[in-house]
Each structure stands twice: as C-alpha cells, then as structure tokens.
C-alpha cells in the first residue's frame, strides 16, 4: 500500500475544486427548481411564449 500524505497545497486545491463542484450542482438545482415553480405558476399557459391560450384554459359552459 502506497503511503502518501497530501500536502497543504493539495488540500487547498481539493477544497476549492469541491467548492466549485458544489456551486455548480447548486446552480443546476436552482434552475430546475425555478423551472418547476414557474410551470406551476402558469399552469394554463403554453410553453413557447408563456401566454394564456384558449386551447389550454378550462372550458366554461354557457348558461343560456
């Protein structure tokens, strides 16, 4: 078994790389979460221009 002790420099670099990795994962989670939240806000909208469409709004029965 190789005996290898990481130097302080290696530990700092590892910490930095881990921090950047966690930031990137966090960013992905945030973008995904925002997408879900936005979709839930605009349930009766179509995706391509985010405006309400008659085709996706609930049908209202005419009482007359």
């Amino acid at each position, binding site marked *: 078994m190789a005996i290898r002790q990481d130097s*302080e*420099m290696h530990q*700092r*670099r590892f*910490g*930095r790389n*881990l*921090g*950047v990795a966690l930031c990137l994962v966090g960013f992905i989670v*945030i973008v995904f*979460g*925002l997408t*879900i*939240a*936005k979709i*839930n*806000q605009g349930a009766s909208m179509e995706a391509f221009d985010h405006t309400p469409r008659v085709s996706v709004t609930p049908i209202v029965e005419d009482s007359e």
Partner: protein
Amino acid sequence: MTDATANISAAKAKQAGPQDAGFGDYVQLLKPRVMSLVVFTAFAGLMVAPGSQPWFISFCAVLFIAIGGGASGALNMWYDADIDRVMKRTSTRPIPSGRVTEGEAFGLGLALSGMSVAMLGLATNWVAAGILAFTIFFYVVIYTMWLKRATPQNIVIGGAAGAFPPMIGWAAVTGGISIESVLMFSLIFMWTPPHFWALALFMKSDYHKANVPMLTVTHGRAATRRHIWVYTLLLAPLSLALSVTSIGGPVYLAAALVLNAIFLKGAWDIFKRDEDTAEADAYAVERKFFRFSLYYLFLLFVALMADVGLRQAGLSIGSW
C-alpha cells in the same frame, strides 16, 4: 517556533502562489458579514410586500440579491486593494495577503454581478433586477471608485448601497417601487452613518495612512459626535413614518417608539461627551450605542414582519 520551522513556514507561504487559494478565500471576497445584513433586510422586504409568490422563488430572490451584494464586495476589494494593503485592519484580506490576485477578484465580481442580475430578472421581474444592477453600480462606481476617497461623507453615500436590499425584495414581489419600500430604504440609509461613526470613534483605524477622508480625521471627533446626534434625530421620524403606511401596525409603532427613544438617548450621550471622558471609560457609551444600533435595525424589521404576520392571521387592531 524555532528559526528552522519559521524558515520552512516562510518557504511554504512563498510556494503557495495565488493559484493555490482555498475556496474560503473566494468566499471572503464576497464579504459574508455584510451579506448577512443584505440577506436579512431583503428577506424582510419580501415578507412585508403585498402579494405572494412560491417559496422557492422567494428563496432564489434572496439568494441572488445576496450574491449581487457579494459581487459588489469582490469588486470593492479589487479596486481598494491598494488601500487595503496599507491599513492594518484590511491587510489580511485575500488580495493584500497575496492569496487571490486582483484579476481573479475582478473576474469573480463581474461574473457574479451579471449572473445575479440576470437570474433575479428571470426568477422574479426586471424591476427588481434593475434595482440590483443599480445597487452594484452605485456601490462599485459611485461609492468605491469615486466618492469614498473624495469626501468625508463617504459613509453616508456608501450607506445608500446597503439600503437597497429591502427595496429589491419588495420589488421582487410587487414588481414596483412604493412609499413603503422607499421608507425602508430611508431607514437603513439614515441608520448607517450613526452606526458606523460610533464604531469609528472607538476603533481608531488608520484611514489617514491610506488617504481616505474619514469624518473623525477630517473634521475631528467632536464634529463626528455632532453628526451622530443629527443623523439620529433625522432617523427617528423616518422610522416612525413606516408605522402609518400599509405595512406598519401596533407592534411596529410600539417597537419604533421604544427603540428610537433609547437610540436618541444614546446619541445624545455621545454628543454631550468629550474625548477625555470617553477615553477614561474606554468608550463605553460609544460601544454600547454601536451594539444597540444592530438590535435597533434588526428589531424594527422583525416588528414589521410581526405586524404583517398578525394581519395575515386575522389579528389586526382598529384601523390597522
């Protein structure tokens, strides 16, 4: 420490170039302590604003406002690296200590500024994003690059940048600016000078070595005491005015009356003291005033949120 171990440590420090900075050094560039105030006041602005939005969007709004604040901190450290090297208090910051290069700080600040403004705009609306962009511009260009080194009123101007977060939080929910958000801005804007000048009275910093015109140095300590009193006098009616707006209520009014009375008493005590008396008791009154100023702002925003909570629970009193 022996000479041999000291030499080894010095050699190691020399070996560890800027490319070997740890993650914590980059976090330090974002001024995490300033960020905590930004997070709290932005959160308060979001909570008291009329209307609602999904909790995740609110969370993201606060996060992007905090990152925007942090980005302006990094740009501030990039531009102020020359004076940070001269002053003892700031000489251990990542750039003056050599752990991070000026270019890295500039790149990080610029990238995070762009990212935070764009993401806040996409998550909430472009009014909030616009105010955040203006806040970063104001802090970096107007304050750091221009007025910090030009006028002893630099703290007053710098305070404006710190006063924007509740306004951004409010705009993130409502999509606009109103008297309530302007008053929340004014509250922090007027609170900053007495808060900081009290600190300047007992923390004798070496700003003169860096050629930064601080009021305590340019106009003297007696003038600083007078300024604290005048700004606290102006602050009191502004903070009370919030109680008669749509977000104020009985809890806020009671809190504002008590807190302003204590704050005014503290400012008056500082105004009436001379340097000899202050030095004799190691600036006890100034230290107490500074500590209380933190509670003052924190409790006023907590009271605002409490009133909104009471209203939402259907427990409003009288016309409130």
